[in-house]
């Protein structure tokens, strides 16, 4: 690791992530030592790659290839629904957050490199009868009909690049 991450830096990012989670209906892992360790790794990755990619996955360093694993990743919500935790277990289900049960191992849902979908392009052709294209947030599923996706997802707060053309 290139430099020591200070406890204050971890506090800052931890607080930001916690507030965002709380305001949008997500829950962080209640194990604070574990969660702070993950937050430290997110800071390491942010400095290393320029974006906080998932600490438990190997980033390529190429932003467009890693877009799906920038935390919160595209796979968080289906993993929460099925396993009660995201792949690295930063985010957990409400019942696990309350201490009713523990997060088990979460199998990797991210496709192998050759099967991954590119970021914003879409295989769906736009409906001719639509007055606006419909954009879908790949992280939380939020849909909106407008010329361009919003700069920041109003639900889960990820950036515009995380949207895909839905209709």
């Amino acid at each position: 690791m290139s430099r020591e991450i200070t406890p204050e830096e971890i506090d800052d990012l931890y607080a930001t992530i916690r507030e965002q989670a709380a305001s949008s209906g997500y829950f962080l892992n209640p194990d604070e030592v574990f969660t702070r360790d993950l937050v430290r790794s997110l800071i390491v990755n942010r400095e290393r790659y320029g974006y906080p990619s998932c600490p438990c996955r190997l980033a390529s360093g190429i932003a467009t290839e890693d877009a799906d694993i920038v935390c919160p990743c595209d796979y968080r919500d289906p993993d929460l629904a099925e396993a009660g935790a995201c792949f690295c277990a930063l985010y957990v289900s409400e019942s696990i957050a309350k201490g009713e049960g523990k997060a088990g191992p979460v199998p990797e849902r991210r496709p192998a490199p050759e099967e991954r979908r590119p970021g914003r392009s879409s295989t769906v052709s736009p409906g001719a009868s639509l007055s606006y294209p419909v954009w879908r947030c790949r992280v939380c599923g939020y849909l909106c009909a407008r010329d361009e996706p919003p700069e920041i997802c109003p639900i889960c707060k990820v950036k515009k690049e995380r949207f895909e053309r839905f209709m």
Partner: protein
Amino acid sequence: MEMNRIDGKDRGDVALFTLSTCIWCKKTKALLQEMAVSYRFVDVDLLESTQREKALEELKRFNPLCSFPSLVVNNSTCIVGFDEKKIKEALKGE
């Protein structure tokens, strides 16, 4: 490919592929340490590109998704993820 060696009890060839940022990888290393098993490991995210490609090529033979941690025992069995029970079972010795 260079791997770090940790000395301990011989339970066959134990190769661990990890990421330096991954907390489940850290837990796996800690478990092997606690079991005092001899193993070799590599933090793939810290390798420069040629070495990284080599490590991934090798890992792909055992775990096509190349997810971490991956624990390869005797060049055959691969335990993916921090699966304490499976790891203890695979490395319990005679």
